[in-house]
């Protein structure tokens, strides 16, 4: 056993490895003078910009919006045109090999529920259910050979959101925030806009910080709700609290905390905590402004399909309601991105319960996918056009994903079973070569055409990080003895889709 000869050499493998941000954070927390205070508030007060060791590439994207379809959206009915399936519709399905399907949904071949038509200059075939995206298809890059390692919703959702099939790993936006910090100290770095009906599989595990400090967690924002951000204002039961007493409390806190600092100046955390209360006050002003649609002109609301104040929706799932809710989230996303939020995650679809209010169409693709897809396509197209007309699409990356695809065979006549063997992602905007398709599925949309060379979520994550200027193998955090990465031990940047 070696004894410590010099304290500096006692921790050569410790948390203060030069590549680990935690190293300098914990050093700072221990009271190192000279460390910029803002570093302690990483993710809210920006860390000195451009200092992360993984930041080694030119920055193409400054911000990201991820659209997540909970329940597994069908690539076959939306994006991945399969004429052979139309031709063989109703014939007994034959995959040429034994297939292990989640609910054994291996009925006859089922053609896409909607017709496909060519769109844009690139002539990409898109389903009528997502036709509004045709107007921006020349900016989109499709990946039709995505594969998952799990056909179970929870695991596959986690894989897309965190890179792992187990809970407990940080969401993609947490990693991004931890590396790049915020563009606006007065708003959270990573915002999550959940489906208005509730969370998808795994709930907050898709966006919370895991082993990263809590400040990197996604902040849930519910546009249109009475309290869109938890605890932004005093609890409804605290009627005794007024704006004046709130301000007086804040002043008293600042003064007494400063007095407490006397003799404790070496502990940077105390000063940093004083600043969090100042930031909180600014967020109380900035967040309502960012979430208010009062200054959005009528034509913008119409473009997103938003009907402010409307609540009397039909009980059955329907297109106008889905369009309103998804459009509201897309419009909110644009406002947040505009104000410097780094990463926005927009969810479509609740959990896998009944009646279906997500994309898990085992029983009837047309019934569920119809309203969900039309609403999603309307809002997503509006978002892309809006970003473009504001000059933001050049440095904003839009990523569309879902946990896996659906089978080309039918289940219960009109539904489709899970297909973890192949599905579709698309990316759009910053640094993306538009109007292209990278990777194809086979004639049925059952597996990748080239089974040896599929695309994985780690490849997509590595690509997203690259566009943000980050080398995915260098964005690490040591936890329980392993230098963890968003891309685990995998991931190759998809250079063909980069512009």
């Amino acid at each position, binding site marked *: 056993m070696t004894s410590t000869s010099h304290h500096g050499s006692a921790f050569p493998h410790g948390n203060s490895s030069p590549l680990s941000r935690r190293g300098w954070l914990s050093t700072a927390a221990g009271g190192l003078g000279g460390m910029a205070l803002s570093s302690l508030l990483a993710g809210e007060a920006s860390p000195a910009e451009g200092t992360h060791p993984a930041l080694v590439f030119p920055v193409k994207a400054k911000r990201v919006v991820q659209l997540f379809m909970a329940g597994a959206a069908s690539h076959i009915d939306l994006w991945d045109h399969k004429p052979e399936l139309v031709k063989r519709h109703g014939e007994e399905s034959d995959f040429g090999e034994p297939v292990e399907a989640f609910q*054994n949904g*291996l009925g006859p071949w089922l053609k896409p529920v909607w017709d496909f038509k060519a769109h844009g200059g690139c002539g990409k075939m898109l389903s009528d259910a997502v036709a509004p995206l045709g107007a921006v298809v020349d900016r989109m890059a499709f990946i039709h050979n995505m594969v998952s390692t799990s056909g179970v919703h929870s695991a596959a959702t986690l894989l897309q959101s965190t890179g792992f099939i187990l809970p407990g790993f940080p969401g993609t936006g947490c990693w991004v925030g931890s590396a790049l910090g915020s563009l606006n100290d007065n708003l959270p770095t990573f915002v999550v806009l959940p489906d208005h009906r509730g969370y998808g*599989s795994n709930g907050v595990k898709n966006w919370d910080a895991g082993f990263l400090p809590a400040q990197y967690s996604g902040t849930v924002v519910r546009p249109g709700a009475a309290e869109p951000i938890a605890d932004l204002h005093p609890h409804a039961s605290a009627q005794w609290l007024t704006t004046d007493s709130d301000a007086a409390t804040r002043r008293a806190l600042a003064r007494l905390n400063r007095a407490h600092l006397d003799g404790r100046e070496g502990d940077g955390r105390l000063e940093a905590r004083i600043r969090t209360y100042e930031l909180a006050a600014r967020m109380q002003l900035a967040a309502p402004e960012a979430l208010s649609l009062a200054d959005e002109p009528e034509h913008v609301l119409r473009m997103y399909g938003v009907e402010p104040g409307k609540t009397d929706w039909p009980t059955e799932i329907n297109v106008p309601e889905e369009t309103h809710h998804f459009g509201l989230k897309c419009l909110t996303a644009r406002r947040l991105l505009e104000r410097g939020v780094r990463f926005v995650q927009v969810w479509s679809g609740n959990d896998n319960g009944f009646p279906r209010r997500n994309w898990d169409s085992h029983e009837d693709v047309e019934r569920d996918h119809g309203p969900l897809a039309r609403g999603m396509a309307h809002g997503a197209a509006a978002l892309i056009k809006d970003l473009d007309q504001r000059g933001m699409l050049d440095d904003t990356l839009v990523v569309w994903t879902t946990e896996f695809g659906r089978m080309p065979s039918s289940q219960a006549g009109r539904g489709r079973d899970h297909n973890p063997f192949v599905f579709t992602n698309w990316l759009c905007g910053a640094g993306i070569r538009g109007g292209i398709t990278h990777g194809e599925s086979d004639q049925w949309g059952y597996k990748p055409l080239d089974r040896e060379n599929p695309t994985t979520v780690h490849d997509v994550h590595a690509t997203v990080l690259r566009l943000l200027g980050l080398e995915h193998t260098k964005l690490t955090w040591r936890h329980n003895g392993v230098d963890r990465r968003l891309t685990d031990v995998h991931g190759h940047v998809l250079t063909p889709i980069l512009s």
Partner: protein
Amino acid sequence: MVLLLSFLCRLALVVGLLLSLQPSMAAAEDRHAAARALLVARCVECHGEDSQEGGLRLDSRGGILRGGEYGPIAIAGNGTEGELLDRIRTADADERMPPSGEPLTADEVASLSAWLADGLPWPGAEGNADRDPRLDHWAWQPIRHPDPPAPVEAFQSLPGVEPDRNPIDAFVRATLAKEGMRPTAVADRRTLIRRLSFDLLGLPPTPEEIDAFVADADPAAYENLVERMLASPRYGERWARHWLDVVHYGDTHGYDKDKQRPNAWPYRDWVISAFNADLPWARFVAYQVAGDVLRPDDSGALEATGMLAAGPWDFIGHVEVPETKTDGKIARHLDRDDMVANTIGTFASVTIQCAQCHAHKFDPVSQEDYYALQAVFAALDRTERTYSPDPAVMRAHATLDARRTDLDTQKKALEARLAEAAGPRLAEIDKNLAAPGGGNATPAFGWHSEIVAASRPTAADTEKWVQVDIGREIAITRVVLHPCHDDFNGIGAGFGFPRRFRIEGSSDPTFATNVVRLADSGPDDLPNPGTTSQVFAADPAAAGAVRYVRVTATRLAPRQNDFIAAIAELDLLDADGTNVARGAAVTSLDSIEAPPRWQRANLVDGEFPGPSADAIALRRERDELLAKVPLEVTDGLRTLEEELAGLARQREALPALRPLYTVTATQRGGVPRPIHLLARGNVSTPGREVGPGALSALAMLPARFELPAGAPEGARRKALAEWLVSPDNPLTWRSAVNRAWLHHFGRGIVDTPSDFGRMGSPPSHAALLDWLAAEFRDRDGSLKNLHRLIVGSATWRQRADDDPAMTAVDSGNALLWRQSRRRLEAEAIRDAVLATAGTLDLTAGGPGWQDFRIEHPEHSPHYRYDLADPADRSTWRRSIYRFIVRSQTQPFMTSLDCADPSMRVEKRNESLSAIQALALLNNGFMTTQAVEFATRVAREAGDDPRAQVDRALRLAFGRAPTDEESTVLLELLRAHGLPAVCRTLVNLNEFTFID
């Protein structure tokens, strides 16, 4: 150019060696170690224990000299020739080794070359040429029991600094002296009692306790205070929380659906009671791994096994996906992985999950080690078991079970004699009698699904369902399925009976909503049951009342070229045993309506195949045979059967058992699943089978458990428990003292408390760690003794003051030149708020309190914290008793870095954010408690504002206000009232940072 120069230098060195020049021994050893480490890092994944590509192993000197399929690859003493060097140096990328990653640098090639030239020296004990250099890492070495160094004379009389109080100080101060540093002055009593109270109890001391301690003239005042706190039940509540972080305890499953786990809490309560009782560490550890085996009649030991089931669990991957499917295999593999990681990471502080795909890159943990550990848990499934908290009842059950086992053995012996005396014909008759019964009493056979052609490999898995409408909602206690009899296809008894099925109830005829599972056929195919009625107990308490009951065949019965499902009769028994299905309306996905034999209505007509007509004759023949058997055998059997029936009655008469969420081996009849090495962790490509064992890195303990063939499942866990708690196991004892140290100083001696491997931090005070571990181990593994020692040290009692000169050298205070100011954890902040407000309800134990409302419980419960009432007093209990949801973590606690119950948390993060400030200012809990706090202050201090401010500050911080504080707070009080003052106090830095 630098590289090239370096390469040339090394070449020169090699040349020099060949000329028999003697370089310094140490430099040569460093270089050799670097070369060996290079092989480990870049080569042994494919050429090592787990994989031997090309028949080659590079993880031992012998292996390298032996070479591969194509012969030798290196020659000892030759640093320039051989395939090893050729393949790493070649410019041909297809040929070059290693095949992935960057090619070796010129430096690395040179070090290998030099090492080969030196003759491949491979150090190890007694000239063991195959020794893995990674075994030299500190953590694998035995615990020494070093003598404490002599006290540092210079520190014994520094102004304000306490002289050494115990050996901890000698170790710590020896290091400080060596570094040219000095200890800090002792803290005052007010600071000490507040620090001690949060450290040991997680709660602030009351102003009265503080005043009493400050005024206590007894020379043993401090020691007495420590004893009082260690004897408080609040101590176990504080320290159990640290433990539950590490074992990732939660009250829901997590993942999709995130169902509640309402009976996990007995484990949490056991941990609390174990800490309070100061259970010797060896027992604390062993019970959690194998308490049910080691002490079968001890309810506490069984509760302890809740640790193995504490982590998240994929309900869908286990319940909805069978083990035969890949996703089902993955789910079960990950389940065992969770048990392995939870056991080895927690007790031994070793990370081994990477070894599920490949040999550990940094530590000497092989894939075989990893899967040997999986084999320990291979028979287990998570489940609810029933038990009694009353040891007497447990013992009574154990006695009855032992007696039953005994009687069963006797019965078997007598049955053997019976068989001998009566001859082989008796067995034939019994077989016939037990065999599938005879024909149908009437031509009304039952319900018959449409036929599925065997055109696809998965045709058998086509689902077919049939359901009845009882007409009203009713609780079902039992479901009976009577199989059909039809000679078609030569099948006869059991015709069409599905191989797998589930039975569900609902209030919705479409079964789209409110579906509850009443029973299912289990994970495996059923054999043809003949005409034996299949009885399933339903749990009406869990399922509730249902109107519709649906039987869904999930694997159909095979015929020659097709598959079907057919059932003669469905009985649904209510609590009184009445068959409420009789005559009910029947619907089905499809049906062959071919009356009178096949139609839906036949399912509930009371007609089903009875026993064989010739059974009567067989019974007569049997009686004749039995007449030849000695009376002592037949009478003996009768007596035994009567006694067995008596035992069953006694069992029912015992007090009701209660449920506990833990693990069981009974779902597999105690038979472990075979565990195979999985190349790259892929469940679809199993390699060779592995038996139970532990880590081979510990030379002092057996790595594989030599258990007799057919040893019960529990023997594996017992062996692992013994391996863990062996006095010779250096990991367990170091791990325990290091975790305790962390919570006393904010940082462990090893700063990575769950990873003692090479990727973890080395100990800051290695000798002290060993001394503490040895003391702890040799003094009954008493944690309370360890606390006494640590909080009794001058090191712990130092002030938390800053000193710029020291900070410049050791800002993280790794060397303990002062005490570290600590930010309270989420639980301690919340509990301190309640304690300060005077509202803390100290009710201990039992099901967790819930500060959420559940919506949509039928599918995926939505846990709505925003709908909870912060004024609900049932939630004003200590935070350890909170019901912990995994998928929707408590937002207030999460903002304060509460442990994530989905991951094993060795050490809490510490973050500061605007969201956290907003939570502390505005969350309903905080605003409600501010009012309660104000009410208390008004009650205790009367109407005088000055007295109110004084009292409020004493309650919050245990001290009188300064003039400035009085001024600021009085102004706030006059303008905005006492609650505003109280809200301010609990938001101050001083409330969450403890000096």
